[in-house]
């Protein structure tokens, strides 16, 4: 194995100008998004995720250069063929394998938000901004169309004719133009005019600029409005606005609202980080979705389809290994040992003896449990499995012991034991063994996928660290051929916990008000830990989140956030920041004990920091006043944690 660079450090979206490399790293599994849940050709799709969720990568796939590279390479590479076929099913390519969509990519950089600081009269800022969006969309579209049709840009634009340039909202100066090249020239002069006016110290020029309140480009660029060489354009038009979070709040709100309200004639995608959302939106999910509008939150999508995310992550990892290693094929998951190795046999044996002895001493005298204990005594197999079996039994016996019964002399039968020995109890047993004897818990590819909190960048960050160690082993293998490349469970856990701690430290520089957020999350983490590590593991496999009622959430959203003097204002702000920076995952409208609640789960990577399980599901309700106490004073409750 010979690798100079860590293939997990690069990001697919960085290879914007290197189509073939981009495709190599692209995993087609993300297209599952458009299988059942969402329709690809819905008029408007708003795609949201935390940073690194894969938005830009998804958008770039639909740009002409990438689509052309897919056509060129589909017969040379199975992976490319697979991506091509999946897109063809979705009508991105026509039956003659030609590109059937003009993907127009417009990325907003932070310069747009500086409009806010220009001393325009009220309203004029947004009007000029909209003008620029229309012009940029038109120019990008014309360029993309030339790329799709393999025309010379801009000369061949004269083959294009716009049928109607007098649609509502379109500027008067455009009304007399129909030829594509003329429209191109017009757009360029408009763009220059805007920039010259902005750069000019004399703001009067800006005031006289004719702005617009409408995104007319989304109608102008409709394929029904375009004739090419005398024939109506048949390709679909997809306008993709990326990095919308870089706009100012007013710009972003106006842009998204206008697009949604407009029901544009072209397919329009808006991609933005969760960070961009206003506080109210972050805590709400109230947008009306339907036939004309998709709201896609990537992390939520994957969270619902955990197995598929694992498959997706695996394919992303293997694609990266493949791109780094050339022809050789490796399965990344095979480098991550998922079972306890024999190197601990003595330690495991000793731990097993300890647990056995403890179970017998504590519960062996009780006739009720004799059958269950005897059943475990008969088990054979590897020591670690036996250790988990016995620790599971100990948890169940602790539960039984808490029950008061009149018939405690009647021996419990095996079926009753089996009923209680669910997977969750076994995971709890593994956690307890981890805590008591130091055997690793966070290892194996499935854990790695869970740790990613459905965020592909987080997955790549963790994988990059694990890969470094594999690379170290490859160096050592040259000196000592018996060195194995794969990572032991201990090593994996050590790397994961180190990364979690380092990332946590780095948050201090990135997240505003981090000291408060840290206190809140530390308190939630501490609380979850105290509830997880109880002898009867009553919340097995453990809890890694808290909940508030939907009524409380509405209070935060509708009142506390808007009123800086409100007692819960600071708590609401901190929660919003936690969501924005992907420190917690939320779920709304979950039914629990007759109440509708909002769940607040700790990001899985940080669960490793707090020694919590990674599975979703278990949580404990805490009132706002308790959470406020967490925020102000940290966790001050009783730490149970007696195993």
């Amino acid at each position: 194995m010979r690798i100079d660079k860590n293939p997990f450090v690069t990001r697919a979206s960085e290879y914007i100008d290197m189509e073939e490399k981009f495709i190599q790293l692209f995993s087609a599994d993300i297209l599952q998004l458009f299988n059942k849940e969402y329709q690809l050709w819905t008029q408007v799709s708003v795609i949201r995720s935390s940073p690194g969720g894969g938005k830009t990568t998804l958008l770039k796939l639909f740009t002409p250069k990438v689509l052309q590279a897919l056509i060129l390479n589909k017969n040379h590479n199975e992976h490319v063929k697979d991506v091509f076929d999946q897109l063809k099913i979705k009508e991105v390519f026509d039956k003659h394998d030609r590109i059937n969509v003009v993907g127009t990519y417009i990325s907003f950089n932070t310069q747009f938000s500086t409009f806010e600081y220009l001393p325009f009269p009220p309203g004029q800022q947004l009007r000029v901004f909209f003008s620029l969006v229309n012009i940029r969309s038109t120019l990008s579209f014309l360029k993309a169309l030339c790329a799709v049709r393999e025309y010379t840009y801009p000369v061949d634009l004269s083959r294009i004719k716009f049928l109607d340039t007098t649609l509502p909202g379109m500027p008067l100066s455009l009304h007399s133009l129909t030829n594509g090249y003329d429209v191109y020239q017009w757009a360029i002069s408009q763009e220059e005019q805007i920039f010259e006016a902005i750069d000019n110290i004399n703001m009067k020029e800006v005031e006289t600029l004719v702005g617009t309140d409408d995104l007319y480009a989304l109608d102008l660029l409709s394929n029904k409005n375009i004739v090419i060489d005398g024939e109506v354009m048949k390709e679909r038009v997809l306008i993709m606005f990326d990095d919308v979070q870089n706009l100012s709040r007013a710009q972003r709100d106006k842009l998204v609202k206008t697009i949604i309200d407009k029901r544009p004639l072209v397919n329009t995608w808006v991609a933005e980080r969760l960070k961009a959302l206003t506080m109210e939106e972050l805590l709400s999910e109230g947008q009306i979705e339907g036939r004309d509008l998709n709201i896609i939150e990537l992390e939520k999508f994957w969270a619902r389809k955990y197995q598929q995310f694992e498959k997706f992550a695996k394919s992303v990892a293997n694609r990266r290994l493949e791109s780094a290693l050339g022809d050789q094929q490796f399965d990344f998951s095979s480098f991550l040992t998922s079972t306890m190795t024999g190197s601990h046999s003595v330690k495991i044996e000793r731990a097993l003896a300890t647990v056995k002895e403890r179970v017998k001493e504590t519960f062996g005298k009780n006739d009720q449990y004799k059958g269950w204990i005897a059943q475990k005594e008969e088990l054979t197999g590897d020591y670690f499995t036996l250790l988990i079996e016995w620790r599971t039994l100990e948890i169940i016996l602790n539960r039984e012991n808490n029950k008061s019964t009149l018939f405690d002399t009647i021996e419990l039968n095996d079926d009753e034991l089996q009923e209680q020995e669910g997977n969750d109890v076994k995971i709890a047993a593994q956690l307890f063994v981890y805590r008591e004897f130091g055997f690793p818990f966070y290892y194996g590819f499935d854990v790695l996928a869970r740790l990613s909190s459905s965020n592909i960048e987080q997955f790549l960050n963790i994988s990059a660290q694990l890969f470094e160690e594999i690379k170290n082993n490859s160096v050592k293998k040259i000196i000592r051929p018996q060195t194995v490349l794969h990572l032991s469970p201990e090593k994996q856990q050590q790397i994961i916990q180190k990364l979690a701690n380092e990332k946590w430290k780095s948050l201090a520089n990135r997240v505003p008000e981090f000291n408060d957020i840290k206190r809140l999350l530390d308190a939630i983490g501490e609380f979850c830990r105290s509830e997880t590590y109880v002898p009867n593991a009553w919340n097995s496999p453990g809890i890694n989140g808290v909940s508030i009622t939907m009524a409380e959430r509405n209070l935060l959203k509708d009142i506390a956030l808007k009123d800086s003097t409100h007692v819960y204002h600071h708590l609401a702000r901190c929660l919003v920041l936690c969501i924005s920076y992907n420190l917690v995952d939320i779920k709304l409208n979950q039914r629990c004990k007759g109440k509708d609640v909002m769940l607040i789960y700790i990001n899985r990577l940080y669960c490793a920091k707090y020694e919590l399980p990674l599975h979703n599901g278990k949580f404990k309700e805490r009132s706002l006043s308790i959470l406020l106490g967490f925020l102000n004073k940290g966790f001050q409750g009783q730490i149970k944690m007696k195993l």
Partner: protein
Amino acid sequence: MKIEIAEALLQKVLEKSTIKAEEIDEYRKYFQRMANYKYDNYEQYAPGMRFIEKLALWLDQIKDLDKQTAIDFVKQRLVFISESEIRLLVESCYPDLIKDKLMGTVAALKQLPPYAVNRIVQSEEYKILLRRSLFFGMSDGARIDEFRRSNTGKISHEQIYLTYELSDPRAKKMKKELVEGFQEQFNRKIRPEESTFQRLFLLDDFSASGTSYLKYDHKEKELKGKIAGLYKSVFDKDSYLYQLFDIENLKVYVIIYLCTQQAQDFINSNFDKLEKEYGNRPELLTMHLLPDSFKLDPAKDKAIYDICQGGEYYDEALQSKHTDQGGTDVKLGFGKCALPLILHHNTPNNSIPILWAYENLPFEGLFPRIPRHIAL
């Protein structure tokens, strides 16, 4: 050597040291990164030689107990000035230093505030003063070619010359170019008092001790060094150079791109004598000053300092009659400068010799130096 073999070799050498196993990976990773970034570009490595391999071989010569000290020194204290970093200093020289000096003169002359940059630079006085300036290299390290290219359109190529030892024909040509080009540049005839040069900028890349620039020879009781040599020829009334300059108003600037505090102090300390002798005092300007704290400190850098002083990895073959001028030995580098510095083209002998000890000696440096003075 293949990079993975070189890394394995380094691993093997480090495993013999007192460094903990888990830290070795970090060292390897760090040095691999630095090798890619800078160190592989050391120009005195033999073709095919890479830093990681050299580091492994270098450490292997060092006692196991000293290995950690040596590698920590390289990691924490070594400064490698790359080609692009030096180039940046050369390219910034005119806009950052020279322009500022010329502007100061013109601002005073025209009674303009120093912040009126545009008015100063656009003035005829500034343009004439710039044209009446000469730029000479003081050694082959002065990178006159880069200086010339980076100032195309600002400074005429005829004003820049590779060396300060100017022949009469070259000096005459410079004057001729000044006179003939004046009409074209300023649309008027040159006045007689404008037909000489008023500013002289002497450029060089690096000085650690300063001794080669200007020093007083107590035996011969005279100033020696490059600056002294230049003054001698410029202020010799019989030389053509004397006529080339407006001696009365001549201002000489010595610009060193990279200079230690020690060198700066040493050179400045001899300017009084120079002024006394010639009635003209040069000014020393440095693009980047290496402060005294940059040198190895006997207390703060005790471990590596002691290794150098101990002489275990030192060879007297590093000494010569030339190095004797800087002291009895070069255990801490020439002139006891104790620098942890590498220049991409050659390691200065003012750095500690465990870094630069010549190839083929029993102990070879990590960045072996090509000696300036070598027996043929």
